């Protein structure tokens, strides 16, 4: 890094500048977080902070950030601090700012009530000015002036209350209204993102290092927000679902653990309505899909990587596999409805769902198994062959055992995915909205042998059956109502159960991968 070449003297002169820039980055982060909080209604923009409305406070913060960022640029341009700016901020930044300023100009003109031609013209003018300011001035000015001005403008609008609580803009042709509650957080978040980036560039002293810092700040922010969305989603479902899931749960007593939500059906007689039939349905669907897809997928992977010569055939199989992988789940559902249902008694059935999910699981198993088998070093095969072991015996006792970890991981992750699929079983398996306990399929006890074709039958395989994701969908389309108490709580409990089933598969899959990888590196 170029940092190593800096001398102590230069560093001293810049330290207060860097400190100010770092403070600006931190303040941008805080403002962004507060903006996010107001967007999702955790905070209220009218909430008083030291006697002043939050939206006004945010406006002042943005204003000072904007002025500060422009100040960083000026200080660098007037050579008060030692920075290494390049002649221009670059065409990418120029285009981005042109777009931003076109949108700002157009929005302001539109909110002022101008016609569509005039707001376009205003937008074009502001966009062109921003483009010129970014592209044709030195980097320190080009990357601070356009961003700082956005923050100054937004800050002024918020601080003076032009945009604030009670502000509204009716989008007539869109049949929607923008309110201050939404506009303030959006302005705040957007402007603070820009000032954060510009301040990060100033912190790095512009130039190559400044761009490095600026880009890293943005990327860290993106990853952080993705992860927080993930954590937020899971936590939200858990919090909402726990009361339903543990309704009537008790430890001790006659049975050691009584968990009515998981062991009851939904009927008027049961004290606590439960999801037992759907849970059993999901388990059987997964078992059926695995029984079909895993042997087939692993066998095909063995043939493709050990026997087949690379050529037209393997290419076609590869294209077909990847094509199947990306085929939408609803198309699999249509296929199951058109192909399997007429062949299994002409109504929705458990076995049709099993096979449909099996078709979906097949490409996942095939792709991961093939990768796992290809990852087995050729030395293993050569050593075995050198001992005079035949090809098939080598595959069976050398290649497959070495590939098992990879295959297992792939299968578990694939199962996690299909366990949550709704669209295919919606069309092929069906079932009731709130099935009673007796609706749970009993596949093992259902086999019957007869003298006439098809000789072996199993009525419970041929019946429409509920499953966790399907039941959730059915509840939603029924408007979250039904013959049970607290249907909404029931639905959240169901959603949590489904999420837990899927996440447990993922957790096991990921843990298996770590376990085997660690073992491999020992």
């Amino acid at each position: 890094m170029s940092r190593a070449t800096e001398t102590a003297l230069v560093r001293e002169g810049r330290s207060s500048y860097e400190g100010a820039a770092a403070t600006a980055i931190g303040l941008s982060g805080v403002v962004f977080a507060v903006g996010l909080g107001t967007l999702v209604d955790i905070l209220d923009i009218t909430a008083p902070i030291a006697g002043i409305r939050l939206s006004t406070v945010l406006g002042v913060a943005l204003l000072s950030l904007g002025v500060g960022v422009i100040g960083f640029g000026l200080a660098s341009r007037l050579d008060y601090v030692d920075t290494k700016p390049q002649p221009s901020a670059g065409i990418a930044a120029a285009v981005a700012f042109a777009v931003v300023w076109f949108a700002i100009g157009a929005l302001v003109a539109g909110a002022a009530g101008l016609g569509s031609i005039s707001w376009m013209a205003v937008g074009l003018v502001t966009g062109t000015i921003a483009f010129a300011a970014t592209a044709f001035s030195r980097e320190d000015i080009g990357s601070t002036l356009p961003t700082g001005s956005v923050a100054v403008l937004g800050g002024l609008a918020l601080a003076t209350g032009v945009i604030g609580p009670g502000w509204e803009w009716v989008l007539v042709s869109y049949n929607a209204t923008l309110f201050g509650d939404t506009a303030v957080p959006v302005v705040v978040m957007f402007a603070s993102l820009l000032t954060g980036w510009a301040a990060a560039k100033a912190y790095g002293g512009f130039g190559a290092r400044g761009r490095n810092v600026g880009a890293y700040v943005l990327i860290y922010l993106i990853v952080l927000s993705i992860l927080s969305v993930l954590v937020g989603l899971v936590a939200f479902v858990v919090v909402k679902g726990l009361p339903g899931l543990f309704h009537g749960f008790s430890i001790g007593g006659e049975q050691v653990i009584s968990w009515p939500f998981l062991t009851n059906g939904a009927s008027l007689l049961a004290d606590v309505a439960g999801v037992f039939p759907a849970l059993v349905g999901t388990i059987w669907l997964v078992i059926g899909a695995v029984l079909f897809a895993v042997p087939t997928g692993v066998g095909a992977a063995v043939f493709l990587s050990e026997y087949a010569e690379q050529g037209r055939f393997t290419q076609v199989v590869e294209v077909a596999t990847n094509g199947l992988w990306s085929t939408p789940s609803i198309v699999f559902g249509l296929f199951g409805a058109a192909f399997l249902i007429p062949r299994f008694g002409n109504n929705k059935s458990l076995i049709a769902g099993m096979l449909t999910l099996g078709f979906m699981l097949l490409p996942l198993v095939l792709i991961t198994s093939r990768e796992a088998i290809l990852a087995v070093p050729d030395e293993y095969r050569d050593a075995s062959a050198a001992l005079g072991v035949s090809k098939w015996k080598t595959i069976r006792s050398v290649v497959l055992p070495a590939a098992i970890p990879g295959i297992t991981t792939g299968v578990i992750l694939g199962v996690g995915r299909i366990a949550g699929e709704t669209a295919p079983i919606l069309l092929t398996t069906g079932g009731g909205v709130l099935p009673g306990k007796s609706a749970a399929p009993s596949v093992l006890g259902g086999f019957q042998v007869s003298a006439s074709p098809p000789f072996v039958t199993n009525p419970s395989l041929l019946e429409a059956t509920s499953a966790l994701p399907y039941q959730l969908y059915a509840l939603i389309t029924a408007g979250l109502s039904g013959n049970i108490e607290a249907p909404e709580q029931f639905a959240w409990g169901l959603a949590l159960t489904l999420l837990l089933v899927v996440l447990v598969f993922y957790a096991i899959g990921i843990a298996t991968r770590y376990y085997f990888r660690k073992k491999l590196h020992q």
Partner: protein
Amino acid sequence: MSSHTGLGIQDWRKPVEQRLQRTREFVTETEPAALAIVVLSMGSLLTAFAGFLLASSWTAIPFATFLVSTGYGWVRHQALIARAVTFAMTTVTIVTLGLIVVFIFVESIPAFQYESATVFGVSVPGLGMFIQTRWDAVTDPVRYSLLPMIHGTVMVTAIATLVAAPLGVAAALFIAEIAPPTVRELVKPGIEILAGIPSIVYGFIGFTIINPWASDEFALNGGSTYLFVGLVVGLMALPTVVSVAEDALTSVPDSMKDGSLALGATDWQSMISITLPAAFSGISAAVLLGVGRAIGETMAATVMLAGTQAIPDPLTNVFYGYETLTSLIAANYGNTSGVHESALFAAGVVLFVTVLCLSIASQYIEARMRRRLGGAE
């Protein structure tokens, strides 16, 4: 592709002759008993498949024969039967894809015929689905235009791509290039888990939380909006983009980046001018696959959208949420019959063909990238 010359026929004959020769050798070398059992096993499997296709109740007999003969062969001639059975398993993917194509197309034929339109005196089946905008299965005139749903799918996919592509590529850059090992070991499974959250759970949150919130926040007529469906679907397509783009980024040889870093470039400069351009085709393949996922996403759209088949005015109105191709099928299948049901299959055909094309395009791009980084060019 050199077979378009005058020698084409000879070129084509040679491999066939070679194959015949090899087959003859194989037959003479193999024990007759083993050969017989393989032929019996594969023959009965084919018969069982044919019987299943014809929906014959006698399918059980050839299938049992297959199981018994394969079981016997497994004990006596394991190597040969294993090879034959794994080959049969390999064909399953091709057969499945073929069956999907055949069955969905066959079911959609009545709708395509119903919606024939005449161009220059030639009747083109299915054209009526794309040149007018009326979908109404109940009141006269009964028409099945797919344009409203295609518009919905385009809106949702466009918004989803705007979310998933930049965020996905940034996250992939983070995982592949920036993150310290311990952070990477935390972020990667996190994104994988994001892929695991079932779409109906997203839909449920959308239906109970986001739709009422949006309705309130924008004073809408009902809470269904393409805007928020697109955002949710973008979140769901994100993991696909991340994992494929990350594969592409890590496949760029370290020697290329090291060269750049050794010249004094910063990490970000190396990423922008070396890694990203080298992995560009892989990243575009990732975005294409993400688009495919967004197009095919069903349950969140079904639950969150209003389910009316209309085109909003103005076209870009993201505050309306009517119907996508996927939600049309999911919401209506089972309550329909005849040409109406067939029209749902036609929607499935449009979906399937679009996504398959995207998949093939991304595979082609990826293969080209692998060739280039392999040093062939």
